[in-house]
C-alpha cells in the first residue's frame, strides 16, 4: 500500500537525517497520544469517586486528570518544534534527490516529453508538502498507539467492543477509493492549472511580459482566459473532491452503526445495573475518541498516500530511460569529430528531425551551420553536444569515443561546451551564472576572461556589485538584463571551458547587430587559429552570411539533411541553395 510505503520511507528518512531530534519527537508524541485514553479512564474514576461521595479522591484524580489534559494539549506543540525541523531537512534532501533524477537519469529526449515534464512538475509540487508528510507520519504512529490502548480499554469492559476498531476498516477502504477519485481529478485538471498559472505569471513574473500586456491592452482578454482555465481546474477539483467526500460518508455509515451499537450495549448494562456511570463515561469518551481517531488516521493515511504518490512519481522518474552510464572513457588527444549516418527522430514524431548525416569535421576548424527554420540545426547542435542519443548512426571523436548522453559526465560532456538557442537565464550572481560553465574552475579570473571573450567587458564594468551582482529579480531586486545582455552571459558561460574540444554555439549573437556579431566571430576565429596547440572545433549557427563566410567549413542543412559542405568560395561556385541565400542577403548591401 502506497500509504505504508510512505510511512516507512519517511520514518527511515527522518531517522537517518537526525537521530537525536527523532528520538525527542518520538518520546513527546508517545506521551501525547497516551494521554487521551488515560483521560477517559481518569474521567471514569472521577465520576465514580464524585458520585460515591469520596471528594478528596475525586480532587486527587482531578489533579492528575488536569495534568493529562495539559499533556494531551501541549506535548505535540513541543514536539512540532523538532519535527518541523526534521521535515525541513527532509524537504531539502528530497529536492536534491529530484535534481539528480531529473538531470542525470532520464535522457533529454525523454525529459522533454509532456508526460515526463508533467510528472516531474507534479513530483516537485508534491514535495512541497514534505513538512506536513513528516508531521502526518508521526501523528499516524501516535494514533496507532492510541487506538491500540483504546481498543484494549474497551475490550476490558466488554469483549464485543473490540469489534469497533475492526469496523473502522470500512473507513479505510472508503478512504482508498476517495483518494483515487481525488487523484484522477488532480491529473485531469493539471493542464488547466498549468495554463492558469502561465497566464498569471505573464502579468506578475517579469516586467517585459507585463510590458507587452500593457501595450496590447490585454487586461480583459488575459484575465478572462486565466479565469476560465482556473474555473475549469476548480470545477474538476470540486467534482473529484465531492465524489471523494461521498465515498467517505458511505464508509462512515458502516462505522457509525457500529458505534451506535456499542453505546446501546453499555447503556443496556447501565440500565441493568451491571455497569457504573463511570464505566459508561469511560466507554462514551473512548468511543467518541475512537471515532475521531479513526477519522484522523484515515485523513493522515490520505495525506501519506498523497505523499506516497509523490514518492511513486519519483520512482517512475527514476525508471524513465535510465541513462545506462557507460564507463568513462579516458581523455584522448584532441582530434576531429566524425558523424556517421546520424539520424534523430523525436519521440512521438512521424519524421526524423535530422537524417543520415555523415560528415567529418577536422580538428581546429571553425564551422558554420546554416539552414532555414526547421531544417534541424538546433537538433544537430544538441546531438553534437551529447544531449540526445541518435536514433541511428553515431558521432565519434578521433579516439573512437562516442558522443551520447550515456557517455556520462566524465566522458564526452567535459569535452564539449554548448550554448543553446533557448539558453537558460540563470538568475544567480554573475560569478555563478557564468561560472557554472565550468564548476571545477569558476574563479573570478576565469569568469572575467570568459566575459571578455564573449565581448561583455563593458557589461562587466557596469555591474553595480561586480561579479557578485545578482541577475534578474526572482528573489532579490537584482539587475535586469536585456535579451542581448543575457545572450552575452550565456555565451561567456559556454566559453568557460577553454579547453573543450568542441564549442557549439546556437545563434550566439542573434541579439547583436551584424557588425557586433562579425567582430565577435572575428575574435573567435583569430583565437582559434592563433592559439598554438588548440585543436578545438568551434561550431556556430548563424543566419548572417557576412559572418558565416568567415568559417573554414560551412554545413548547409536542408530538411534534416546536409546538402552541401565546404568553404564559402566552393559553395558559391556551385550555385546552390547556399549561394542563393547568400545573394538574397547581400542584396541589402548592393
Amino acid at each position: 500500500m502506497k500509504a505504508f510505503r510512505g510511512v516507512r520511507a519517511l520514518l527511515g528518512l527522518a531517522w537517518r537525517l537526525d537521530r537525536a531530534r527523532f528520538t525527542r519527537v518520538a518520546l513527546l508524541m508517545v506521551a501525547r497520544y497516551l494521554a487521551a485514553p488515560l483521560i477517559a479512564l481518569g474521567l471514569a474514576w472521577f465520576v465514580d469517586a464524585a458520585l460515591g461521595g469520596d471528594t478528596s479522591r475525586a480532587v486527587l484524580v482531578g489533579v492528575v486528570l488536569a495534568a493529562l489534559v495539559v499533556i494531551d494539549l501541549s506535548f505535540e506543540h513541543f514536539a512540532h518544534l523538532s519535527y518541523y525541523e526534521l521535515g525541513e531537512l527532509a524537504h531539502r534532501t528530497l529536492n536534491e534527490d529530484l535534481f539528480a533524477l531529473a538531470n542525470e537519469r532520464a535522457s533529454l529526449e525523454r525529459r522533454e516529453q509532456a508526460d515526463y515534464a508533467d510528472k516531474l512538475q507534479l513530483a516537485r509540487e508534491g514535495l512541497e508538502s514534505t513538512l506536513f508528510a513528516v508531521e502526518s507520519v508521526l501523528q499516524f504512529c501516535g494514533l496507532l498507539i492510541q487506538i491500540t490502548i483504546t481498543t484494549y480499554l474497551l475490550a476490558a469492559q466488554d469483549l464485543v467492543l473490540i469489534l469497533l476498531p475492526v469496523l473502522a476498516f470500512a473507513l479505510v477502504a472508503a478512504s482508498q477509493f476517495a483518494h483515487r477519485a481525488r487523484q484522477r481529478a488532480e491529473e485531469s485538471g493539471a493542464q488547466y492549472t498549468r495554463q492558469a498559472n502561465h497566464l498569471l505569471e505573464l502579468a506578475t513574473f517579469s516586467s517585459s511580459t507585463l510590458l507587452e500586456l500593457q501595450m496590447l491592452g490585454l487586461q480583459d482578454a488575459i484575465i478572462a482566459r486565466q479565469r476560465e482555465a482556473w474555473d475549469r481546474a476548480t470545477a474538476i477539483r470540486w467534482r473529484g473532491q465531492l465524489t471523494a467526500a461521498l465515498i467517505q460518508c458511505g464508509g462512515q455509515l458502516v462505522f457509525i452503526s457500529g458505534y451506535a451499537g456499542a453505546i446501546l450495549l453499555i447503556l443496556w448494562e447501565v440500565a441493568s445495573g451491571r455497569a457504573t456511570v463511570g464505566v459508561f463515561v469511560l466507554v462514551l469518551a473512548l468511543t467518541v475518541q475512537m471515532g475521531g481517531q479513526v477519522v484522523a488516521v484515515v485523513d493522515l493515511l490520505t495525506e501519506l498516500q498523497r505523499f506516497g504518490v509523490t514518492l511513486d512519481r519519483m520512482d517512475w522518474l527514476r525508471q524513465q530511460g535510465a541513462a545506462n552510464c557507460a564507463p568513462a572513457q579516458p581523455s584522448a588527444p584532441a582530434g576531429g569529430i566524425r558523424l556517421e549516418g546520424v539520424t534523430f527522430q523525436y519521440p512521438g514524431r512521424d519524421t526524423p528531425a535530422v537524417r543520415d548525416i555523415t560528415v567529418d569535421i577536422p580538428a581546429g576548424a571553425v564551422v558554420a551551420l546554416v539552414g532555414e527554420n526547421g531544417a534541424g540545426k538546433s537538433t544537430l547542435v544538441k546531438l553534437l553536444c551529447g544531449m540526445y542519443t541518435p536514433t541511428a548512426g553515431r558521432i565519434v571523436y578521433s579516439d573512437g569515443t562516442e558522443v551520447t548522453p550515456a557517455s556520462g559526465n566524465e566522458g564526452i560532456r567535459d569535452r564539449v561546451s554548448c550554448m543553446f538557442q533557448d539558453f537558460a537565464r540563470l538568475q544567480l550572481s554573475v560569478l555563478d551564472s557564468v561560472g557554472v560553465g565550468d564548476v571545477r574552475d569558476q574563479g573570478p579570473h576565469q569568469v572575467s576572461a570568459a566575459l571578455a571573450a564573449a565581448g561583455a567587458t563593458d557589461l562587466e564594468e557596469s555591474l553595480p556589485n561586480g561579479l557578485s551582482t545578482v541577475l534578474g529579480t526572482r528573489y532579490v531586486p537584482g539587475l535586469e538584463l536585456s535579451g542581448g545582455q543575457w545572450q552575452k552571459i550565456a555565451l561567456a558561460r559556454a566559453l568557460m571551458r577553454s579547453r573543450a574540444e568542441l564549442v557549439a554555439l546556437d545563434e550566439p549573437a542573434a541579439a547583436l547587430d551584424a557588425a557586433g556579431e562579425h567582430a565577435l566571430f572575428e575574435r573567435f576565429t583569430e583565437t582559434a587559429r592563433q592559439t598554438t596547440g588548440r585543436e578545438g572545433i568551434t561550431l556556430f549557427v548563424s543566419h548572417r552570411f557576412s559572418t558565416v563566410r568567415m568559417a573554414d567549413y560551412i554545413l548547409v542543412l536542408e530538411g534534416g539533411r546536409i546538402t552541401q559542405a565546404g568553404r564559402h568560395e566552393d559553395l558559391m561556385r556551385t550555385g546552390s541553395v547556399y549561394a542563393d541565400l547568400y545573394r538574397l542577403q547581400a542584396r541589402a548591401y548592393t
Partner: protein
Amino acid sequence: MGAALAKVTGRARDRWRTWTRLAALLPQAGSPLVALSALVAVICGLLPITFIVSMGYVLNELTSSPATGAAEALRSVATALGLALGAFALQQFLAPLQALLSDLIGRRLDGAGIAGVMSSAIRAPLATTEQQDTITRLTTTTVNFLYAGLTAGRGAAALLPMASRYLDLVAAVVVIGVTISWPVALLLGLAAMVVRFARRGSLGRFSQLWSGFRGERQKIFYLQSIGIDDDSAKEMRALHLAPWLTDRHTRDSQAYLDPLWQGRRKIYFGPFIGYSIFGWVVAVLAFAAIAWQTSGRAEVLGLAVAVQAVLVPLRFGAHFPDSDTETQYGLQAANDLADLHRDLTGPAGQAGRKRLTLTAPPTIRFEDVSFAYPGSGRTVLSGLDLTLRSGTSTAVVGINGAGKTTLVKQLCGLYPPSAGRITVEGLDLKEIARDDWRRHVAVILQDFVQYETTLRDNVFFGAPGYPLDEDALADAIDRAAARGIVDDLPNGLDTILSPAYEGGVGLSGGQWQRLALARALYAVNMGARLLVLDEPTAQLDVRSEAAFFDRFLHLTEGLTTLVISHRFSTVRRAGSIAVLSGGRVTEYGGHDELIDSGGTYAEMFRLQADRFTGEDA
C-alpha cells in the same frame, strides 16, 4: 494612561479591521455557497454539545428511574438517544462536507484575487511596474496562488470552521454555567480566551519571523527551479550541474534554516511552558469545583454533562488545524494584496480623456522630447525631435542602449516624456485616452510573448478591444506567411501552442516570430494605423526575412510605420532613417541620402556591405 488606552484600542481596532477585511472577501464566493457553508458551520458548532447534553439526559434517566427492566428503560429515552446518536452521525458526515465547501470557497476567492492582481498589474503605470521591487513583490504575492499556498481566499474560507469552534465554546460555557456554576463557567471561558489569544499572538509573531525569511525561501525555491524546470534542463546536463546545484542548495538551505529554527524555538518554547502551567492550574480548579459541587449528591445529569463539557474550554488553547494557520497567513496575504493594489494603483496621474478615431495614418511628432527613468536619473532621451510622417515608414538605428526601446514605450504612451511632447495629428498624446490610442497602435516587441493559449488567441491578442473577427484573423495569418503553421497543426487554430497540453504543439523561434507578426497585422486589420516593429525579423531565417521585406512595402501600405532593426536589409527599405545617438536624432534622411552624406550610418553600412561585396558579389 489615556495614551496607553488609546494604543490598546488602536491595536484592537487594527486587528478587527484585518479580520473584517478577510471576512469581507467571502461574498465574492457567491451567496448561496457562503450561506450553505455558514449553515453547516452553525450546525457543526452546536452538534458536540447537543450530543453531550442528550447523552447526559439519557444516562440520568436510566440511573434514576425505578428498575422496570433495561429494555423498558431504554425505550423511555429513545428520543434523547436518537438525538445523541444523530448528532454524532451528523458530525461525522458534515466534517468532510465542511472541508469540501471551504476548499471551494477558497478556490473561488483565489480566482477573484488573481483576477484583481492581474488587473492591477496590467493597468498600473509602467513607471511602477518597471521598478524591480514591484515585480519582486508581484511575484512573491502570486507565488502563493501558483503553489496552493496559504492565500487570502483560503484564510477567508477558514473563518467558517473557526466560527464553529467558537460556537462550540460558547455552548459549552453555557452548559457548565447551568450544571456547575456561572463563576466556574466564566472562569473557564476567560481562561480559554486568554490561552487562545496568547497562542494567536505567538502565531502572529512567528508568521512575522517566517515572512522575514521570504527572500531566502525564494532563492532556495529558485535553485529548485533551476534543477527541475524545463528551461534549464539542457544546461543542467551539458554542464553537469546537478552536484554543484545540490551543494549550493544544501548550503543556502542550511543558512536559512538555522536562524529560522532558533527564532521558532524562542517564540514557541518558553512562553508555552508558562501557558501549560496556567492551563494545568485552571484545569485543577475546574475539576475540584465539579468534585465539590456534585460530590455525594448523585446528580448524574450535571456530573456527566459537566465532565465532558469542561474539556471544551480546556482544549480551546490547542492549535486549530483547520483554521489557525489558514487565517493567520490569510490575514497577512490579504494585507499584502491590499498594499500591492494600493502601490500599483499609485497616485492617479491625469489620464488623457480625449477621444481619438483615426481613419488615415497619423503624423506623429516628437517635439524636443527628453526622458529619464524615474529614480535612476539616467537620461535616455534628450531633446529628441522626430517626425513620423503620415503613411510613411521610418527606421531607427543606433547602437545598443541608444534609447530605441524607450522610444517605443513613449510612442505607445506608456511613459509620458519628462520634457517636451509627442503629438498625434497635432493632439498631445498625454491628452488622448489610453485605450483609444492603444487601439490605433500595432506593435511587435523584440521580446514578444509566447502565449500558451490557442493559436487563434495568440493572434487575437493583437486587438483584444474588439470582438473576434475571423476573417481579419485569417487575413493577418496569410499576410504574415503563417498559414503553413496553422495547416500543420492537429487542431488548426484551436491548437494550444505548447507541447505541455493535450493536443498542444510547440513552435520554433521563427514560427513564433511569424505569429507575432500576424498578431500585429490583425491589429492593423482591426483599425490600427501606427505599426511599430522592434526587430521584427530577428528570429527569421534568410529566406523568410527576404520574403518579409519583399512584402514590407505592401504590409506597411496605408500605415505610419516605425521600425527598429539592426538589419540594413530592413532599414534601407524604410522611407526615412533616423540615427539615434546620445538620446537624440543625429542623422535623418533616406538611405541614399545618408550614404552620400558619409556620416555614421554610411560608415556602419559600408563596414557591413564590404563583407558581402568581396570577391564574389
